[in-house]
């Protein structure tokens, strides 16, 4: 059984935020108004965090794209009172929206702050409404949502593979962020499969995970920048 994970090379990331845009467009994430964003209620499953090093003019900006870490030991799953968030056998931390009661325990439990509450009914400008992705449900107001590693793509890819009577290939299932990254900083695949690139990259000496000391065992690895 695969164990889906991601490796993000911080040396390659230019902070273009194409992953953020692709994610929002793929997953029907509504745009927030400036007022809502000021209250910290904007939703961004994939977020490019910035880090400033040094003082002007000798400063450097570093970027850290942050999706859901899909922890092997997810704190959000432990606190969910209705099993709306759970970890699948393939390691994807799923969110089942019709089950979610919006208690926001998980959002508070997540050390990476990747779980977002829908404070408002999602709205889009009229020009964008026709472009919503039919493969992803639009979340109603009052539920939590999060990065799902674009698992709707896995559903389709697996079906295609079965219809054609073959095994699932690495290229069949790639989340939108990995697909769109112009510098290929985001690599996605089965962490346990030796034929997948992520397996090789996660054993790189530069590989590290965010807040590893918490014991969450994230499945998103970062390759630290070379100095």
């Amino acid at each position, binding site marked *: 059984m695969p164990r889906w994970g991601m490796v993000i090379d911080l040396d390659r990331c230019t902070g273009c935020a194409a992953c953020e845009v692709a994610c929002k467009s793929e997953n029907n994430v509504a745009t927030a108004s400036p007022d809502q964003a000021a209250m910290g209620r904007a939703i961004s499953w994939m977020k490019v965090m910035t880090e400033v090093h040094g003082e002007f003019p000798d400063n450097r900006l570093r970027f850290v794209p942050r999706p859901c870490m899909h922890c092997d030991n997810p704190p959000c799953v432990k606190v969910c009172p209705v099993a709306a968030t759970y970890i*699948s*056998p393939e390691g994807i931390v799923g969110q089942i929206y019709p089950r979610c009661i919006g208690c926001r325990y998980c959002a508070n439990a997540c050390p990476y702050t990747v779980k977002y509450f829908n404070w408002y009914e999602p709205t889009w400008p009229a020009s964008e409404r026709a472009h919503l992705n039919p*493969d992803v449900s639009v979340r109603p107001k009052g539920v939590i949502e999060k990065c799902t590693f674009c698992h709707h793509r896995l559903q389709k890819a697996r079906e295609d593979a079965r219809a054609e009577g073959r095994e699932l290939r690495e290229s069949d299932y790639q989340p939108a962020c990995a697909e769109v990254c112009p510098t290929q900083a985001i690599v996605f695949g089965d962490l346990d499969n030796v034929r997948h690139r992520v397996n090789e990259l996660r054993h790189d000496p530069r590989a590290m995970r965010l807040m590893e000391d918490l014991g969450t065992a994230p499945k998103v690895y970062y390759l630290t920048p070379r100095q």
Partner: protein
Amino acid sequence: MNSRWLAERAAQLKRRPRLLGLVAAAILVAGGASLVAGQRGVSQPIAFNHRKHTQDLQLDCEFCHQYVRTGAHSGLPSLEVCAMCHQARQGTSREAERVTAFVEQGRPLVFAKLFQLPAHVFYTHRRHVGIAQLECRNCHGDIALTTRPPRRPLVRVGMRACLNCHRRTGQTTDCVACHR
């Protein structure tokens, strides 16, 4: 005074059930009306006779529901599909005459969907009919034997029905395999 109060109270109590009854009757009538309204369900432009087509004429479901093996939706027949046979008048029924009229006038024939899939469910006919070779009857009941289009689904398919079948046949019961 005491006795007068008692008499009034007794009269009140006597009257109350009647009042309550009136209110209850009003609620029942209103509720009944709304129920009847809800029971109208789905109506079709043509009273399509499934039995005639699938039993008497031995047509395959796929003949009209063209994408049942290859698509997410099985598809509802367009006027062109009806026109394959109904270009000329077929049979003696009034509905067959109406179909021919539709064809002759080139008026679009739009059938209404009977089964509605919730937006958060990933389901494709290809996976279930094309790959797993399930019978239509498993989820749609004996719709092929109906003589008039049903206003409501003959079988109510909920998550319980999906899970029961998935468990019985050893298929995945992982939430994200079907929820999206």
